[in-house]
């Protein structure tokens, strides 16, 4: 959908990321001018990466002329841009969407995560100070709530106890991982800095974002995808063992293949007693973002979440069905059972997401729904149909390995059965 051309210019950071690239496409479709900040990576320039993404997002060529790509690194002061570029940027940017983020959870990556998520924001705000930019859209996360239990409000939580994040270790009493802590910190930095320079601040807090709810298309294969991918890998591994190598290794783990192609893969998933996982599709995020941006007060915090969590047992059922498996089952609670090798590997895949799989947080949606409901923006339910669309796409592009070479051919259900299993 193409809107009227606008002279307004939006600066988008993290333009080559999952959400950032979708937002670039959406803003271009609205007819806005976009300046995308991105880094070079994997031997490709920022522009090359951006073009590849625009192709993938099927952005028409005529819209792309309104896009300017700036190679910048927000980990260094003022993005490493030269003074002329900065002045030009300051004179033309009306609003900024800050998507650039490091989503690593590991403590070992704490410094890197803080550098990107906190110092990167500081550097961006230095860049924008004195500019004509009047509004910052900060893409945060619902999980800044950290280890809160129960209702999490659409407000900034207190900052007490978090000092210099570059020196402080992970505050394990308040956060599950460095990502949560850094995003929490970033919200406070944004609030303080925007207040000083008189810039409006809208904070968007999505939960876990997966692919498009209708097509399954996605650029990122983490979070929901990781453990399912592990199951898919095991399925292929042991099917091959049975069909080509006599199945001795499969048999040792109680794995067998039925005549109809169903593989019995005994993995006990520790599902926990919590409220499941909060998943939203990227298309919902985009519509919600747009609605909040278009109608809301420039200042505010909004949870972009699913009103209904998905239980791990549901995902397990979906996975069995999609990959033609039996044996994969969800166990309530964190039972202290001896684990076999497959289960240990699987556990490790979901270890980082444990807090999200067994979520005890309930995200308040009052402010967001006040904006979204009137315009009919509703989060789709995470049904088997949605799950299947996402996994079909994931398998089709080999979990991202063929993302750039094979992105358009749809896979039929029957074809999927043979190609993925």
């Amino acid at each position, binding site marked *: 959908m193409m809107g009227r051309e606008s002279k307004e210019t939006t600066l988008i950071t993290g333009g080559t990321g999952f959400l950032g690239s979708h937002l670039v496409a959406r803003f271009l479709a609205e007819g806005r001018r976009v300046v995308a900040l991105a880094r070079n990576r994997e031997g490709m320039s920022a522009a090359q990466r951006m073009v590849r993404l625009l192709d993938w997002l099927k952005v028409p060529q005529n819209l792309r002329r309104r896009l300017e790509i700036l190679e910048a690194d927000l980990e260094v002061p003022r993005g490493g841009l030269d003074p002329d570029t900065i002045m030009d940027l300051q004179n033309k940017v009306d609003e900024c969407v800050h998507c650039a983020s490091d989503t*690593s*959870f*590991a*403590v*070992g990556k704490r410094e890197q995560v803080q550098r990107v998520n906190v110092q990167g924001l500081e550097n961006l705000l230095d860049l924008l100070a004195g500019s004509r930019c009047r509004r910052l859209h900060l893409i945060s996360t619902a999980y800044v709530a950290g280890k809160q239990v129960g209702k999490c409000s659409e407000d900034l939580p207190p900052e007490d106890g978090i000092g210099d994040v570059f020196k402080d270790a992970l505050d394990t009493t308040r956060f599950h991982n460095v990502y949560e802590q850094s995003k929490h910190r970033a919200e406070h930095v944004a609030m303080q800095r925007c207040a000083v320079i008189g810039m409006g601040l809208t904070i968007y807090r999505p939960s876990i974002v997966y692919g498009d709810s209708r097509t399954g298309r996605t650029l990122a294969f*983490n979070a929901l995808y*990781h453990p399912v*991918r*592990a199951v898919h*890998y095991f399925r292929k*591994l*042991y099917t091959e*063992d049975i069909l080509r*190598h006599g199945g001795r*290794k*499969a048999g*040792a*783990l109680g794995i067998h293949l039925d005549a109809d192609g169903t593989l019995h893969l005994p993995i006990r998933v520790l599902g926990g007693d919590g409220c499941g996982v909060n998943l939203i599709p990227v298309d919902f995020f985009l519509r919600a973002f747009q609605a909040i941006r278009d109608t809301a007060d420039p200042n505010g915090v909004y949870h972009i979440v699913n009103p209904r969590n998905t239980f791990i047992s549901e995902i397990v059922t979906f996975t069995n069905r999609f990959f033609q498996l039996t044996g994969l089952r969800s166990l309530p609670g964190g039972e202290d059972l001896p*684990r*076999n*090798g*497959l289960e*240990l*590997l699987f556990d*490790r*895949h979901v*270890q*980082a997401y444990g807090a999200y799989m067994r979520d005890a947080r309930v995200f308040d949606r009052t402010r967001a729904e006040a904006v979204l409901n009137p315009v009919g923006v509703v989060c789709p339910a995470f049904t088997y149909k949605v799950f299947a669309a996402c996994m079909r796409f994931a398998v089709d592009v*080999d*979990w991202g*390995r063929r993302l750039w070479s094979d992105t358009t051919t749809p896979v039929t259900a029957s074809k999927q059965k043979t190609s993925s299993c």
Partner: protein
Amino acid sequence: MISEDIRHQAAQCRHYAMCKIDYLGTGLCASGAEHQYVSHFPQGRMDLCDALARNVVPITEGLVEIAETCNLCGICDRQCHFITGMRPVEVMKALKKHVREWLEQGNVPVAPPADADLERLREIVGGQWATNDPAILMTYANDPFPLAGPRMPRFVVLPGNRDEIAAVVRYANDHGIAYAVRGNGGSVFGFVFTDGLVLDMHRMKGITIDAENWTALVEPGVTSFELQQAAVKQGFRVNTAEPAATVCGNIVCTGLFSTWSNAYGVNADTFVDMEFLSRDGEVFRLSDPTAPNVFCYEHQPTSSPGICTRAFVRLHPMTDDEAGMLVPFTAFDEAVSFVQDLSRRRIGLALGVLGGHYLSTFMAPTASLALQLQSTLSETLGMRYAVFLVGDRFAREAVRSMRPAVIDAELFRMLLLGLPNLAEGAWQDLVSGMDGDEPAYELLLRPEIRPVLEAILRPAPETLASAVDEDLRDFYTQLYTRPEMTDMVWLNMFRILSSRMSRHKHMFAFLVYVPMDRPALIRSICDRLRQIADAQGLENDFGFLTPLDLGKRGILEYDYYIDHQNPDDAERIRRAAADFEPYLEEISVTIKGVKWLKNIFSQGCARKEAFLYT
């Protein structure tokens, strides 16, 4: 006409002389075994092919014989591929073809010039063991060391015994002929050249095991591999250098060190006695009261005490429960502290910290697989370093109680034989998806995971062989059915994998003795050497670190990699030398326990206490 492609292949020979020992049980090049000059082994033919293509050597009578006696049996392809990935048979074919066509055109080979000195030398050693044939001389004139140019000798002599050496030396002294000794015909450091006479000790291969005295009497042509074979047959082990290096030459030169030096020491610890022929042609034993004192150390380049004609090398006992083990680490300092701790607690015999590059290069049969594997080990599994250990069952149990995540002998075999699958993309992606605070190896090395790993890796000789050229797969499959090829103890005793370090490029090794209780200092030395190399655009990496003397000291290897045929790389290393030489010299004189190996060259008989604790 020799094509540029063939010439380029020929010029890549690393001169490791591995084609002169039967390290894979393939047998030796028949022509080399018969004629014994370097020129008649594949290494020499590679040099000659390169030289012919560059038109810097005539086709001589010797060269015709060299070309004609190659029967294209293919042994060199198997031997050379195993360590360098090269396929010399194509070069051998080109050399034979070139010479044959040249002869068919009616050309007459050049006869070596008549030389009275040569005749006298032949009287001493026998007619076939001294030559001045320019083609044969050419193979003793150059080595892949980028900072030393070629020097063509006048003669090459292969003495058969000590008396012949003495007579040759006396003759050379009397007639003003300079001489240099090459234990196995090569010198990878490029320090052993002369425009006079080269003494190649290859014929002197006597080994006598004295089981009562725990010693082996070794002649100067005996290689480390050959001595180890002889020792193992009688239930002993020796501390040896690289397999093709001669034992005597290596002791005299660098003092001989390995991961076994943790238990067996270095330099003078290696031998009980040695016999030398002085520069004046006099024979003496180090244990003689009047012998020169070579047990001391001078912090300056010194000349060797003479030509080592025999060494009485220590033999060490083995137990039947020895096995290898690798203990992975993510952080360098942690690995260093751990290996030092093992050493001071007397846990383990062979010990060392290996870098990811070392480990992957040793294990992988091809350079491309090694590159993939390095990424797998370091990035995917988080195993940037590994402490290597050989120990008896008590030692290994102790290590397991200190660090549960280990690669034992069985798992090592599984990983090695399943290497192509270990480096495979989907598996790597799966492991990469395990975001967490602990390195992936900690989980993957748990016993419960082993059945899954076995399914993923499908370890088998055929699996490993699938990584090499199709026509070599049967050979590799057969090779890896032999238990010793996956046995860390055997591989580390015979060191047949060490030459793989020069597979993708010629290796330029820095060896520095260091205080083991200062990991930060050791890291800073590595960092400085890395900075110097990076500034010149030279590939570089940490090699290994072995503790010595109960963990008080250690020997560090840091490596630069160069294309020895690329003049730009030679220039880069020359410029780097302007930085690393003064740096290493400075830390050698200012920091206790630090000594750069440069000044220990030719002082390999020195007691380690003479340079480690000054």
